[in-house]
């Protein structure tokens, strides 16, 4: 076999060499064993504990829905004039989280960002579960839940046809399309790995189970060729959806004439915010996971750093959007809008309020929480020390999620609670049902996510192998040479 090695490839100089995407020069066999091992090994105690908690919380979620349906929307804290509250906040928040997965898998795929391979599977799963959590809210927030199907264009004897001018209608299509394509894309990518699981299965049930979903994958050249074409097409399809879904969600607000909602900046601002929160959530999920499942060599510090950089980038766009909103409110000269930005949002009791001689905004704390979490926090990611400290990144990523939740809170609540006619003004406070409903969706999310890491390869085995040095024929360690197929 020595003649194969007759062509000598120079290794790149050390200074040009990139940090490998898989650490410790792990071989291909190790990768398969380690990733499949998560599923094949003993169920860890922490998993059981987390699963029990998640399951309980998921039950709470459904009990709350049952209570809501049987009793009325009044069990929530909604009130005149704040007719949208936690439900819409949570909906937009979860949808935002659902952005990272498809962005990572589709856009980074098209941009040939190879580092995506270690995280795309988990991120996509996160996307799907987050969109499921998000999807619950528009359905249950309506007054007559049992008539929710009237929002779909289903021909019926009532002659009721949805009104296509309504952004809520666009939402229905945008979210359902996004969900469908995301699921397809995710499942497509899973097929080779499901086949791996099938082939490694030691029990009949597993063999049948994985075999069924592996769709007879043999790993033949033709399979791979079709697979990659399909993957590319789906990536192409998903890419505009990443941008469209949150743009359309933002139109729920932007189309209205309410100061604070009626803003042309919303679509890009919402997409940036969504990516920001999505990456925040990926970090929140993967930093503990790589530790618990001993995947530090696959999800490396470099991966985390790269995600931090993306977070920093989109976080800054979000900060810019905030500033632009204020600028436009001032520049437009619309006193209603000026009032909203200063007196419903920014005026705090300490600095801004006294500076402009105005009473503090009722929700000033929400606004400043948002600003700190979304504008100040990402700026820490300029520092490599911060980016490489997993504990710090984890803590900051949680703040990112908190900040993005408050962003939606600020948009929905502060705009609504004091609008045009002062006689309407009110104050919104959630009830225990609101809070449990929100926490309940975490139960739903984590139940699915825990099941996912336990039963589905949480890292794309085939793809990760593709970015190892061994897979690169030009690499000294790569190509078909002796010892190359570790």
């Amino acid at each position, binding site marked *: 076999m020595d003649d194969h090695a007759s062509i000598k490839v120079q290794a790149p100089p050390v200074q040009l060499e990139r940090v490998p995407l898989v650490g410790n020069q792990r071989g291909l066999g190790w990768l398969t064993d380690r990733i499949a091992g998560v599923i094949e090994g003993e169920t860890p105690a922490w998993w059981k504990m987390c699963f029990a908690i998640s399951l309980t919380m998921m039950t709470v979620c459904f009990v709350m829905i049952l209570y809501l349906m049987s*009793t009325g929307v009044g069990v929530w804290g909604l009130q005149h*004039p704040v007719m*949208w509250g936690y439900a819409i906040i949570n909906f937009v928040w979860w949808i935002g989280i659902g952005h990272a997965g498809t962005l990572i898998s589709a856009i980074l795929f098209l941009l040939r960002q190879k580092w995506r391979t270690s995280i795309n599977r988990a991120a996509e799963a996160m996307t799907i579960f987050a969109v499921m959590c998000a999807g619950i809210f528009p359905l249950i927030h309506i007054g007559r839940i049992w008539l929710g199907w009237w929002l779909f264009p289903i021909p019926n004897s009532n002659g*009721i046809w949805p009104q296509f*001018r309504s952004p809520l209608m666009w939402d229905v299509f945008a979210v359902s399309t996004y969900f469908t394509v995301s699921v397809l894309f995710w499942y497509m990518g899973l097929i080779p790995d499901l086949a791996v699981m099938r082939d490694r299965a030691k029990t009949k049930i597993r063999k049948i189970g994985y075999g069924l979903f592996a769709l007879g994958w043999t790993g033949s050249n033709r399979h791979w060729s079709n697979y990659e074409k399909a993957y590319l097409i789906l990536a192409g399809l998903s890419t505009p959806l990443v941008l469209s879904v949150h743009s359309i969600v933002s139109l729920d607000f932007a189309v209205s004439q309410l100061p604070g909602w009626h803003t042309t900046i919303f679509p890009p601002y919402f997409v940036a915010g969504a990516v920001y929160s999505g990456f925040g959530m990926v970090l929140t999920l993967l930093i503990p996971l790589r530790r618990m499942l001993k995947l530090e060599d696959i999800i490396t510090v470099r991966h985390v750093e790269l995600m931090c950089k993306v977070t920093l980038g989109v976080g800054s766009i979000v900060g810019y959007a905030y500033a632009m909103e204020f600028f436009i409110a001032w520049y437009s000269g619309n006193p209603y809008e000026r009032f909203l930005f200063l007196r419903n949002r920014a005026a705090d009791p300490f600095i801004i309020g006294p500076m402009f001689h105005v009473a503090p905004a009722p929700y000033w704390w929400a606004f400043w929480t948002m600003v700190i979490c979304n504008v100040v926090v990402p700026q820490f990611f300029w520092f490599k020390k911060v980016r490489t400290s997993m504990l710090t990144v984890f803590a900051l990523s949680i703040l990112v999620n908190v900040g993005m939740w408050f962003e939606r809170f600020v948009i929905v609540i502060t705009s609504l609670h004091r609008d045009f006619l002062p006689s309407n003004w009110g104050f919104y406070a959630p009830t225990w049902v609101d809070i449990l409903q929100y926490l309940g969706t975490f139960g739903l999310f984590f139940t699915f996510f825990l099941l996912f890491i336990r039963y589905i390869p949480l890292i794309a085995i085939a793809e990760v192998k593709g970015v190892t040095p061994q897979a690169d024929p030009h690499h000294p360690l790569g190509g078909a040479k002796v010892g190359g197929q570790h």
Partner: protein
Amino acid sequence: MKTIPPQCPEPETGPKYWRSLDQLAGTPEFRQWVEREFPAGASEWTDPFSRRNFVKIMSASFLLAGLGATGCRRPVEKIYPFAKMPENYVHGVPQYFATAFPSRRAALPLVVKSSEGRPIKIEGNPDLPGSNGGTDPLAQASLLSLYDPDRAMRCTRNGNGENKTEALDFLSGLSKTAGDGGGLAFLLEQSDSPSRARLQQAIAAKFPAARWHVYEPVALDAGRAAASLAYNRPVEPCYKLDQARVIVSLDCDFIGSEANAYANIRDFAKGRALNGADDAMSRLYAVESLFTLTGLNADHRLRVPPSLVVAVLAKLALHVLGATDMDAKLAELAAPAQAHEAWVAACAKDLAANRGKSLVLGGYRLPLAAHLLVVAINEALGAVGQTVEFHPTAAAKEGTLAELAAALQVGQVQTLVILGGNPAYNAPVDLNWPQAQAKAKTVVRLGYYHDETSWDAATHAATQWDLPMAHYLESWGDARTADGAVVPIQPLIEPLFGGITELEVLALIGGLTPGSPYEIVRETFRGLGGDEENHWRKFLHDGFLAGSAAAAVPVRHDPAELKRAIAGLKAAPAATVASLDVVFYRDAKMDDGRHNNNGWLQELPDPITKLTWDNAVLLSPATAKELGVFTQERLTGQNQKFFNPKVEVTLNGRKITGPVWIQPGMADHTVGLALGYGRDKTGRVGAGTGFNAYKLRASDALYYAWGASVKDTGDKSYELATTQSHWSMEGRPVVREASLEQYRKNPKFAQRMKPADPEDTHGKPIVEPLYPNPLDSAKANGLHQWGMSIDLNRCVGCSACMIACQSENNVPIVGKEMVGKSREMHWIRLDRYYAGPVEDPQAVAQPMLCQHCEAAPCESVCPVNATSHDDEGLNVMTYNRCVGTRYCSNNCPYKVRRFNFFDYNRHPLNHQFLYRSPLVAKTDGEWELLRWLKNPDKGNLPEDEWQLAKLVKNPDVSVRMRGVMEKCSFCLQRIEQAKIAAKVKARDTDHIRLTEKEGTVPKTACQQACPAEAIVFGDMADPASSVSKAKEQERTYKVLEFLLTKPRTTYLARVRNPNPAMPDSKEHPLPYTSEEFNKGPFSPGEGAEEPAEKGAL
């Protein structure tokens, strides 16, 4: 809703057949069996959850289903088609009957709409001379009391159910055993009923020794008493507010809580109406301690504590009367008001300058001497015969409650007959009424509720009969309006629970024949309108006896009584923080407590405080600060729920506790206490509302009291629910206002008060819509174009429109907790804004309802097309289609849409179980889900409430379920009915257009109820219609017009008429709202049109 035929009359002769088992069940034996089944005390109302209460409710509904209500409902299986159609009856077409709402001494003439035997809507009778069909909230809401499941339903003796015939036998037995009437005493409410007067006379003739006493906890006739003394003959003052150019009110809330307010509003609005810049308008000065509707409408308002009201009056008298021999005494009385010298002097000058066109009014709270002084001032101003007339009236002969209590205490009264009223709750505390009442051997009590005066286990007479009183819509009677016209009270429905009328009881006790209320009234009418049947029929049809109104009589003023009274008047001690003044006032909704169980009224926001379901201890901000009970949150209005400090008010050693309400514009060092709340025994609606201010009220200080102290209890757990938390308009041009002078200079001021339109670089406005108005093309198809104009200069904020709308459109009540969360359902609301300094602001009111925008923001965002536009410009709401995304409400800039957060119509009255899931709850012992599935309409309503709740509903308007958005429809059902009627009439011709000229254009419920005629609705496509003309006025503006929603509801800007010579006018020549606007960011500022007028406004 099933169709209910009216009751067929019983044949007068021949055998009587029972038509149903129910009727058979109505035999006396059966009734007795039903009632006797229950052991002693079965009708006690104390514990709402006891088994006994449950049995009571079941028995009540059984009675309802079987015995009482055969007149209005029958079980569906027993309905047969009419063999012969009753005359003038068409299924589904409502019938209208003239009747009257009896209220103290001035009945409100009504036309009541009846649908299939159920009275469902109360409207004013527009046919009376001078009337415009306006009503007040109390009359509007009295309909709900008819269907109150908590009203007294059966006769009881010592709390135990008795057969009605037995009770009646007892009463007629009295007529035989009473002898000459010694020991027999009657306690009545005020009334001007000719029939009652006739019966009283007949009984007095039979029982000459019988005592007659009248008690009204809030008597509104001080003016009459004073005039009668001053003129030495019984006369009633009748004010002509439309004739007056200058009106001075001395603690007289003639727009709100005084007698006959609806007529006062009508006349006052006439005097304020402006059709052009050249029109004159009246000027109102108000001197008051509380902030009232009169103060809201005043051009100059002087807030003084009650101890200074008489001083201000004396000062005014000094200026107006000229030199008299009372000067020294008046000067002494006026001394404490020296600080207000400039104000009073300028005011007096204005009065004198308008001799014969000015009027001074004194409120019911003023002492008699003050009223005498008011009469003298009016005399001096030449007002008599011009702005005030005196009508002859009957002299009051009856004794007072205090006299009766004294007689009871010494055992002079054996049999006490209490007809109406509730003295055990509202008598002055020093009379110790419950104990006095127990001294009588026998008490006969006719009452509408089982209340404090009803038999009580703790304090009771040896025998007490409690008889259920019939509602006025169930009974025959008569009354007089304020100007003396005789009006009939005729029933629209059989007594639902066998109620008895006052006339019936009197006739029985007097042993008079005929004894049926109908016969009594008929008999009285013979004496008034002659014997002819035609006259009687016309009387019933028209609702009044033509020519029966009293004519003005010439009067000669006799100052003797005034001098005597003035000499006896002492200046009140000055109010300080340690010795506060107290004002007990008649509540705008509860009156003296009689409407306590009326949900519509409980939920109607107070016109000024906007409080619902509660009264409060009203304090001015400065006094609250001094007392340490001031809360900043209250002022900024950040929350709908107010957990204000609870304070203890001590007056002469008596104490009550209640939550503080900080009221801008209140006089300092004054405590305002509304009467009528805090009932011990009331129905499910009124239970637990407010505190009882009567507990502080003694005979010597019925309305004003001095020397109270207020102490913070430290308890902040009590929640007050208000419908409007934010006080200020923030300088926004929502209510646009100018002074009369400014209006004359710049008649188009209202259009200038909007944010400057943005311009492009060429100076052209860039607010043109991008897309054509979607209604423009539809307009071509619409036969009519509906629109509304609301004249803010006429609107006084009385809130009659709110209840009228609630009644017409089946708007549910939601309960206090829901109001606290801003979930009230009123389709029309009255926004009240304050402007100016928080201590002494001006206030404005604005009715706000769906604006029916042509480019409605709500429509485009509804995903299911539930809200859409019709060709005639109505923004229509399809309830059945609504899924409740609530986006429409979010996108409505006026926030006039209302959402059914719960199934308000299917929940029990007390609303404490709104949050209870039907999955885990039971009602009447049945699983709620199952109950709901069996009868979704009934939902979770207890059986007795369900039986009555459904009767009050307007069958032409859907009852909305939970999860559905609703809003004002411009009374679409009325428009459609009018259209149908026009089409029927038109037959083959194409004359189907409704025109105002022919009187075919319907009135909306709010418009109809408005005594001020502030609301005009009609066809904008008809250039001759009133609404078209109103919209052409220069004062017309649209709220938030810059949003280009093109509302069909427009407003006519408000104009205040300040006197430039007044001291406050020199500092603030403009209304505070326009001052705020000019200073604020919403002012157009530089570059606005009409620069010539800048600075002026």
